[in-house]
């Protein structure tokens, strides 16, 4: 079953493309996809071509949740709900920054929509600019590692908590390193009625400065260091986390990516790495990650 691709123009080794095909496969094509402007849209729909084999709409960068709400409402009004689930597939920039209002409105109104954020941690489509989900220390083209500022100074915006605060019945994180887990979570979200939010960590080869062949391995390291906690909330309750045996130091994840390379060059970088380790330790404690 190939519901996304082949023939799309994503970079070789793009983790987001891996994520998306598994989202669609989990839904067996019974879905309506609303995609925000960003890499996955641009690489998949140069007129007259399309890589999508499900009904698909791209409208704008920041309105995917509202467009999805319109589709869901229309399906209800036309008694066509049986056709499939309405799914948003949006980048981290579209989700955590510019589209946060339409996402909030959609969740608040309680639309039956599955929102999937493929989190590659920057605005990749426009050339790797910083987003609300760019991690601490990362070099991006708008948070460059310079002589006086060592890359992005802030932590990732806690979007799952924002979704939970809206009363979303199902909120989860996942990683392209664990495909069966993605599928399981997508199906769970599909089967509940109401808004759900799943944020899936997905690699970007040029944006992170990684070897394309190591895409999966690096995504796994984010989980194994505790930097990308994998968890699941049902009805506001934390119901499961991916446990980590022998949590690795964050350096193992950072050192294989060009976006963190500057951190290994001086004292100041070392301090940032320590702060990043603190984030991982906090995650481990907060979510109970250590096995």
């Amino acid at each position: 079953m190939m519901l996304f691709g082949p023939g799309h123009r994503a970079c070789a080794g793009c983790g987001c493309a891996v994520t998306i095909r598994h989202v669609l496969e989990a839904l067996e094509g019974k879905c309506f996809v609303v995609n925000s402007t960003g890499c996955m849209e641009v690489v998949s729909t140069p007129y007259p071509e399309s890589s999508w084999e499900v009904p698909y709409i791209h409208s704008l960068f920041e309105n995917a949740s509202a467009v999805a709400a319109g589709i869901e409402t229309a399906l209800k009004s036309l008694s066509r709900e049986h056709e499939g689930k309405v799914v948003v597939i949006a980048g981290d920039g579209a989700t955590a920054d510019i589209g946060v209002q339409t996402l909030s409105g959609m969740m608040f109104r309680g639309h039956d929509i599955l929102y999937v954020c493929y989190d590659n941690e920057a605005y990749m489509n426009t050339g790797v600019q910083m987003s609300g989900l760019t991690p601490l220390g990362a070099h991006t083209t708008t948070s460059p590692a310079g002589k006086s500022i060592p890359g992005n100074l802030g932590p990732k915006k806690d979007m799952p908590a924002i979704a939970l605060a809206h009363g979303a019945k199902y909120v989860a994180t996942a990683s392209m390193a664990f495909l069966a887990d993605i599928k399981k979570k997508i199906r769970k979200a599909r089967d509940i009625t109401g808004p759900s939010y799943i944020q899936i960590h997905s690699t970007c080869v040029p944006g992170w400065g990684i070897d394309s062949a190591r895409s999966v391995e690096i995504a796994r390291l984010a989980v194994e260091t505790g930097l990308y906690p994998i968890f699941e909330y049902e009805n506001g309750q934390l119901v499961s986390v991916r446990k980590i045996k022998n949590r690795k130091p964050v350096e193992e994840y950072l050192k294989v990516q060009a976006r963190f390379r500057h951190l290994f060059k001086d004292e100041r970088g070392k301090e940032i790495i320590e702060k990043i380790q603190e984030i991982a330790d906090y995650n481990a404690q907060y979510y109970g990650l250590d096995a």
Partner: protein
Amino acid sequence: MKKVVEGSVAIAHAVKTIRPDVIAAYPITPQTHIVERLSEYIADGELKSEYVRADSEFSAISILVGASATGARTFTSTSSQGLALMHEVLFNASGMRLPIVMVVANRALSAPLNIWNDQQDSISQRDSGWIQLYAEDIQEAHDLTLQAYKISEDIEVRLPSMVCMDGFILTHAYEPVDLFEDEEVQKFLPPYDPKVYLTTEDPLTFGALATPEYYTEFRYVMQQAMERAKKKIRKVFTEFKEMFNRGEESLISLYKMEDADIAIITLGSLTSTVREAVDRLRDKGIKAGVVKIISYRPFPEEEIRKSLDKVNSFIVFEKDISLGHEGAVFTDVKSVVYHMKDRPSAFGFAVGLGGRDVRESTIEKLIVECIEGRKKEGFYFGDVKRVKEILK
């Protein structure tokens, strides 16, 4: 069924008979009474549409993009800041050829904040690929709302429509209105057949990206659709007149233009004021007539040119200004007379901005000034006070 109703109620009533599948809106003065009344119809079970209380006008129109692409008939209404907030989505809706219908309760744009009427909001969206129809009175706004669906949903057109009615002046006024009966509307407006829409049965891709290799052709076909819309508007107006015995058959409406030396061109509720001024001038032996623009986009180029064939001069009165140039309607009308051998003299006035009351005496006075040669050809603020500007 003739009843004295508020303008907003007349619109809500028309929408109720049209039965959109999905309505999404966000409140803003002076549009509020329209959406409040629609909400009441839904709360009372008189209207079965799905109504989404959007988190902004930006979301409201985006919701309709999704709903319309799914094959639903849709409605929204807004004003001023709300329409400006929709700007990005307006181009998106027309580019995807979604026949959304929106009633604009015309209001000035901030800053300075002003909730009163002018037409800067919709005129500023003239390049967005939406059909724009301007109503002179409540009856016309009510009628155009229905006609807009028939025009927009036609496969030859498939462009969204704005029905523009002056905020407060029409939305909050009471007039006797011949309100639609359900059966009449069912007879006049065929059910919406989207032809291409989002469905799992035929999984199409909407909103593709067009490279320089294709983009021009997309704009080209939209321009062609606007051309076809002119014909369709005439046809729909004519059908409407046959069935309801009222309304126009053309994109413009003429008053006392048969023997006119001077044409007064305007749009919206200002037309009534202008008409009265023209009557007074006629009493004084001045042969003036009125050209009312109903369809501003598509622009009635042929009709206006024909109507100006015999006049010595024309004067445009409009409630907007393209800052740094002149009134947008004035520019458009001038472009139409460019090819005429005996080009009439051209005068234009911005009047009634931000809700300033436009008196017929003001209109009359300005017309006389133009006729008597006290004004050079060009564009002016018609009702501006003396200003002492403080720049420190």
